[in-house]
């Protein structure tokens, strides 16, 4: 079933054209990288603030309020460009274990983002960041770095992408 959908995606004329033309294929990569840098950068700064390692004089809620829109906007760009690249070779990715690891780690990282986003206002009002907040921020940092490692391992270990 899933394999069937992957085959259909890959054979879709629009998807094949966008991945088969050099400048659109390069364009997808450029958008994917640039949005990844903003996504991971903005999220790491929020996490580091929760850990007390950046901008201690800045209000955590305010800093998070400024950065979270960029986290979600860049995630949207990152997802769309990533999905289009995946679709271009969907059948190969379907058979690629490292790609599943990458997607799994990213889903966990997004879950951590949601937790931090929902709780940061409450944490910011406390006299000190609670241990649970620091743990969540620490996990979020680990997951995003893990996502980058998994991301570079997909082509390195499997030759796909």
């Amino acid at each position, binding site marked *: 079933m899933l394999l069937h959908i992957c085959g259909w995606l890959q054979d879709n004329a629009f998807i094949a054209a966008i991945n088969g033309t050099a400048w659109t294929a390069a364009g997808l990569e450029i958008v994917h*990288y640039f949005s990844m840098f*903003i996504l991971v950068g903005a999220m790491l700064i929020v996490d580091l603030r929760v850990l007390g390692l950046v901008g201690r004089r800045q209000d955590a809620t305010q800093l998070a309020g400024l950065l979270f829109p960029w986290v979600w906007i860049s995630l949207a760009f990152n997802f769309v460009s990533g999905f289009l690249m995946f679709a271009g070779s969907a059948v190969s990715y379907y058979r690629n274990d490292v790609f599943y690891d990458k997607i799994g780690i990213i889903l966990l990282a997004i879950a951590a983002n949601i937790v931090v986003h929902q709780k940061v206002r409450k944490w910011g009002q406390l006299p000190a960041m609670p241990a649970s907040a620091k743990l969540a921020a620490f996990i979020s940092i680990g997951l995003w770095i893990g996502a980058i490692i998994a991301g570079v391992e997909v082509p390195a270990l499997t030759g796909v992408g």
Partner: protein
Amino acid sequence: MFGHWLQNRPFALEIAGSEWAYPIVQAIHFTGLSIWVGTSVIVDFSLLGAGRKSSTSLHLSEALFIWNWIGFAIAVTGGFLLFSVSAETYLVNLAFLTKLGLLIPLGLALHIVIQQKAPAWENASETPRIAKVAGIAELLVWFCVVTAAVLIPYAG
């Protein structure tokens, strides 16, 4: 000459020959870039007025200063190691030469100017037009840096 010498250093041969080292070095480069590009362009976006309402008393550029340069140092370290693996090829690649010789110096110069002026710009009740122009310019230059980097394999 230099390229040949560099890519035959033991550390470069080590990275080139190991299945794991190269992608890990890539991941280091990308993690550094996330911190550097993320912290740099978020200041640019805020100069353009995005998300400014909620952060009138936020000295973003100052707050991010240390991590901004930590990210840069990590990115340069990872980037140098990636370069050293096939230095000779990179040194004749037009996209790489444009990235390293033109775009990165331009981006850095702009970035340092913005970093010096940002506290004054952030304090002003109305962001001056020059700040917005500088912010857009820096965003564009780093976007071009990423573009040149992606084009390296195409230009080889």
